[in-house]
């Protein structure tokens, strides 16, 4: 799809079999809705609410030629790059986090030309999703003007029709597929998110197909009891998969904190063995476990319990901060 092509994007929505009923399905069936060459937008942000079950499913189903977009891309991007699933990433930042330094995976793949990195400012990419969510071809912004980022992704400086001032038009991004992890969903696809919402609500409306994993599958009554907590309405969603602890080793707000030691070990293996460190991780954590439960069984229960306690402590306002 050409950047900003709101007409094709809407035609795709209209062409879809209308699907207001049951959305609950398996990760395998949800994953089959992704095709080789698709643009897949990943919800959450960095190591928060990364939809790891669907990331693993794309790896297990051996998708190829994907374009991957995410506002701050983390190790899920590295896994998909090393597995050869990705031709291009669209992001404002890629790494694990400051303590782990530059991403060797990113450097190897981009510097060699095997993967193209289309870089946007954080807001610039956010507005691209938002333009998609709004069904318009672009949004005007003041960010990125005067920078070399203007030329990387195809921003267009335009004259404001009212003031004559220069503003930056960023083209709408309409992903083929969005993959998201949320706190609660019902079988019709309604979703609740606790805490910060990252860009998930925009990504869901912008994408042609929306796949959601949820910590908990709840009854529709939960939504009728708290209607102002609904972040994504069901008619936007195509598939819902139950994935408790599904953002591990990252975090899910209020429920469990990121296990930073998991990333310590992951990065240490890369520093030790290069891309083979990632391949070993893939074997153990992605290709090994046949089900979500088998994957859960790989985590040390005491660690999981500790991360849950940390999550509760950090989001408990009774715990004094400075």
């Amino acid at each position, binding site marked *: 799809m050409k950047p900003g092509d709101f007409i094709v994007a809407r035609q795709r929505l209209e062409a879809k079999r209308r699907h207001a009923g049951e959305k609950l399905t398996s990760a395998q069936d949800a994953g089959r809705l992704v095709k080789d060459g698709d643009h897949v937008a990943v919800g959450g*942000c*960095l*190591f*928060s609410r990364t939809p790891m079950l669907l990331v693993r499913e794309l790896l297990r189903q051996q998708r190829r030629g994907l374009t991957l977009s995410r*506002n*701050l891309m983390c190790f899920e991007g590295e896994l998909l790059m090393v597995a050869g699933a990705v031709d291009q990433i669209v992001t*404002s*930042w890629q*790494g694990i*986090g*400051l303590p782990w330094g*530059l*991403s060797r995976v*990113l450097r190897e793949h*981009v*510097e060699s*030309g095997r993967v193209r*990195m289309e*870089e*946007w*400012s*954080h*807001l*610039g990419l*956010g*507005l691209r*999703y*938002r333009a998609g969510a709004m069904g318009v071809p672009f949004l005007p*912004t*003041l*960010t*990125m*003007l*005067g*920078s*070399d*980022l203007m030329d990387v992704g195809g921003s267009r*400086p335009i004259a404001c029709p009212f003031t004559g*001032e*220069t*503003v*930056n038009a960023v083209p709408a991004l309409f992903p083929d597929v969005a993959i998201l992890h949320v706190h609660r969903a019902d079988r019709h696809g309604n979703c609740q998110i606790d*805490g*910060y*919402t*990252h*860009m998930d609500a*925009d990504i869901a409306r912008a994408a042609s197909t929306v796949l959601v994993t949820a910590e908990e599958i709840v009854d529709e009554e939960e939504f009728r009891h708290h209607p102002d907590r609904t972040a994504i309405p069901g008619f936007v969603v195509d598939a819902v998969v139950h994935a408790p602890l599904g953002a591990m080793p990252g*975090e899910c*707000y*209020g429920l469990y*904190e*990121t296990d*930073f030691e998991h990333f310590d070990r992951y990065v240490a293996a890369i520093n030790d063995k290069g891309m083979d460190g990632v391949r070993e991780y893939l074997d153990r954590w992605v290709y090994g476990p046949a089900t979500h439960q088998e994957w859960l069984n790989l985590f040390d229960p005491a660690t999981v319990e500790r991360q849950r306690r*940390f999550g509760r*402590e*950090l989001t408990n306002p009774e715990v*004094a*901060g*400075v």
Partner: protein
Amino acid sequence: MSGEHADTGLGYTASELLGVMAARRLYDGASVFAGVGLPLLAAVMARKSHAPRLMIVVEGGVFDPEMLTGRLPISTNEMRIAHRATMLTSITDTFLYAQRGFLDVGFIGGAQVDRFGNVNSSVIGPYDRPKVRLPGSGGANDIISLCRDVMIVTMHEARRFVPRVDFVTSPGFVQGGESRKEAGLHFGKVSQVITNLGLLGFDEQERTMRLEAVHPGVTPQQVQDATGFELEIPSDVPTTAPPTAGELTLLRSLDPDRRYLG
């Protein structure tokens, strides 16, 4: 930032010096867009001392958080940085508060800074086949474009302070003169570059970098030697007041594990 944890020989490390100097720039009632690391520590420090009503905003969608001692955050998008916030929202909306003009102060770092205050955190070498692919802008471009006053906080090394950055990730004064405004950036400016050697600002007309102060024990020539282009150096360069014992005690108490301070 190699060398940032080295003792300056004056009873504090370079990173402590940066933290204290950054904290001093913050004023009561202001809103500050703070990333993780020293800027966040500086903001918390300011709020604990001279700016109790400082509003900290974090790009992960976090407004007015507190911090748990010993649980300093690693990213702008996690529970550690959201602790006891008064508001949590989406990332895009958070940046839009800055675009509307609600954010007074922003801090950024970067791999390269040039004489117009442009910052590179994208690539060393050509964009399409870079020699080094750096992580990317994140929110740095947005902060420098949208906040009212922006401070660049960085270690002072000749390889960082280059005549022209390989790639303008975050525009300072672009090509100097009026070029930032001509590009459409009517608001915000790089007000100061805070380094371990001194404080730098920009000429009002040319918008080229100039030395505004040196830290205790540093000479203007040392700053010039650590800069890859010719700095404007006034005849009389003031020396900053050294970190006080009170400032250092407070700063260190906020990072007992020396996660940010090294």
